[in-house]
């Protein structure tokens, strides 16, 4: 701290971190970069909470019997893990932290279109999070994060209303952020920054925001319907009145399937930036990648029924949902091809962000391919609600989503904090996380095909060996995360000073100081070339004397 203070006291121009130091200057800030930091801190806490829950039940699953936890506690823990990780970590992760920090900088704007709304979104997020935590502290929720009726609406005796309220409120926060991004990207791009000069991260954020805008309100009203049913005793899904619990599943998955794209599209945007930068080559098939983000966002709304093949949904509806699901696979697969082809004849260096990109490519490929097992109707009948599904979505959401998030964190860490992290430790942690992840989740594919149902507290003894492997892997994974937390924390105070453009990357965010000043640029930049112009030298908008070495 004292060092930061002395730096600020010198002739250095003030940046967004150092221009004011009071608590109020953080809690009432409208600077998108500071809001991003607020989100980063809150999300880290939620990630630790969700991870702790997972660690506990993973430990309990070492043996087939119930030894560590009671059934009720076990059910509450996996519910908490799901709610916290989905609604309070994965959905906001890259948009709220990286998007908030980068969208205005990347398009050369001073801030997002509605800065006060942006701050409000953080408060709303925190309110939702605290209410959900309240539900957990006051006794917990045992419905699973999917809140299926009629269990959630009529049978569960836990704090469903509070949990539903928390998720509902958090939904508003993502809507506010998404709305802000669309308007910002639409209306506030710097002169010369045409649509096809935009970084692909911006395209990904735009597509993600569309999904949030169109999907989140539907889950919001669906959660309100659960609330109405529990609180006012109105039977909206009550079978005794002729209500249909499967209708809840339709409404729920109308959001929650596209929500998978909310979690993965931003990561795809990040990977595009990283692969391009560390291959020193413009992304292969820029236009295709840009439009495929939008295509995935739109097609993603037509496939929700593939979560319901055994729900008693009409076989014909299932047929159509299965058919359309295969179509989402095509743009996704071609994107992987694009990233690989970008490396072809590139000049590849293996800095930490690139290691995460490699991890993403491997894990997300497996996650995507195992999705085919679940969109094929005959195999889904067998695999539905087994550990195969658990493994599949962890490969997509952690292998894809979280790997992208960590890649982004390392790629833009120098920009956000003005410090470099220790490269050796970072590489080590990336490799540990990759290995630990595979050890944890690969055995679960096998468990699933052999019939191990998900959400089981106790299980048949023949499954034990694979569960033990999974738990062992989880401890490696956990160790990887802890190493990362340690060296990132260390780097905040002791890390080497970062230059404006430590990776020699292209893009407006690299043409301002690290960390950027409050309004991002000293004067509004003008863009004269396309994105990823790695064949040309970096265009400098920052006078040399302001650059740190």
């Amino acid at each position, binding site marked *: 701290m004292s060092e930061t203070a002395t730096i600020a006291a010198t002739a250095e121009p003030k940046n967004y971190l150092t221009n004011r130091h009071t608590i109020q200057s953080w809690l009432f800030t409208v600077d998108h970069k500071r809001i991003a930091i607020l989100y980063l801190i809150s999300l880290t806490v939620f990630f630790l909470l969700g991870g702790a829950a997972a660690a506990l039940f993973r430990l309990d699953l070492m043996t087939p019997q119930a030894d560590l936890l009671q059934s009720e506690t076990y059910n509450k823990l996996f519910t908490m893990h799901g709610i916290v990780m989905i609604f309070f970590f994965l959905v906001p992760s890259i948009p709220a932290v990286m998007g908030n920090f980068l969208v205005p900088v990347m398009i050369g704007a001073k801030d997002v279109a509605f800065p006060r709304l942006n701050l409000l979104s953080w408060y709303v997020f925190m309110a939702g999070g605290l209410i959900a935590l309240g539900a957990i502290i006051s006794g917990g929720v045992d419905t699973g994060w999917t809140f299926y009726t009629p269990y959630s609406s009529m049978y569960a005796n836990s704090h469903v209303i509070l949990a539903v309220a928390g998720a509902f409120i958090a939904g508003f926060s993502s809507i506010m952020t998404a709305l802000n991004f669309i308007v910002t990207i639409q209306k506030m791009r710097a002169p010369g920054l045409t649509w096809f000069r935009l970084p692909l991260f911006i395209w990904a954020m735009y597509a993600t925001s*569309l999904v949030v805008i169109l999907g989140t309100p539907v889950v919001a009203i669906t959660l309100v319907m659960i609330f109405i049913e529990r609180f006012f005793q109105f039977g909206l899904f009550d079978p005794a009145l002729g209500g249909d619990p499967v209708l809840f599943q339709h409404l729920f998955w109308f959001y929650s399937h596209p929500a998978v794209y909310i979690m993965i599209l931003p990561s795809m945007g990040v990977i595009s930036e990283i692969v391009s930068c560390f291959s020193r080559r413009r992304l292969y098939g820029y236009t295709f990648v840009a439009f495929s983000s939008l295509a995935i966002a739109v097609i993603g709304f*037509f496939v929700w029924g593939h979560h319901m093949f055994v729900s008693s949904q009409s076989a014909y509806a299932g047929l159509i949902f299965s058919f359309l699901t295969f179509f989402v696979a095509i743009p996704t697969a071609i994107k992987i091809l694009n990233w690989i082809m970008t490396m072809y004849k590139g000049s590849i260096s293996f800095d930490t962000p690139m290691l995460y990109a490699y991890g993403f490519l491997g894990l997300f490929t497996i996650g995507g391919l195992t999705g085919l097992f679940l969109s094929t109707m005959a195999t889904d009948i067998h695999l539905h609600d087994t550990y195969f599904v658990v493994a599949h979505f962890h490969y997509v959401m952690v292998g894809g989503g979280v790997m992208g998030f960590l890649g982004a964190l390392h790629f833009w860490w120098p920009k956000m904090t003005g410090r470099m992290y220790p490269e050796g430790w970072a590489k080590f942690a990336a490799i540990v996380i990759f290995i630990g992840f595979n050890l944890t989740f690969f055995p679960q594919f096998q468990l699933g095909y052999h019939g191990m149902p998900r959400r089981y507290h106790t299980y048949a003894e023949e499954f034990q060996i694979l569960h033990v492997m999974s738990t062992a892997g989880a401890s490696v994974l956990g160790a990887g995360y802890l190493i990362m937390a340690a060296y990132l924390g260390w780097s905040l105070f002791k890390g080497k000073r970062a230059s404006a453009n430590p990776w020699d990357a292209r893009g407006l965010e690299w043409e301002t100081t690290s960390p950027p000043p409050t309004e991002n640029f000293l004067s509004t930049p003008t863009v004269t070339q396309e994105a990823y112009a790695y064949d040309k030298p970096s265009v400098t908008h920052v006078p040399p004397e302001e650059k740190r070495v």
Partner: protein
Amino acid sequence: MSEHHVMPIRVYLTIIAILMALTVATVWVAFLDFGYLNTVIAVGIAVIKALLVVMYFMHLKYAAPITRLFAGAGAVFFVILIAITLSDYRSRDWFPFPEPWEQAHEAPASH
């Protein structure tokens, strides 16, 4: 400066007159028997009323193309949500199912 479109008050008055007339019409039509068309007519009139409000009171007719695109997207996804959900319910008792699996009639594979 088409964005700053100031409409003459006369337009607003015409629109409100049409809206009120359509309200009376929809009530009147509800008491006549057109079979299943009653629903179509009721929703049709509501759509016309909504379009009038959107186009004139909300100035969408004079708004930027991107604004109109978003308004349109809202309507389209609203319809998608309802139509696809309903398609499940309408096709649940469709007959006939495909023939049962021929192997069912074969001799058991083993004992």
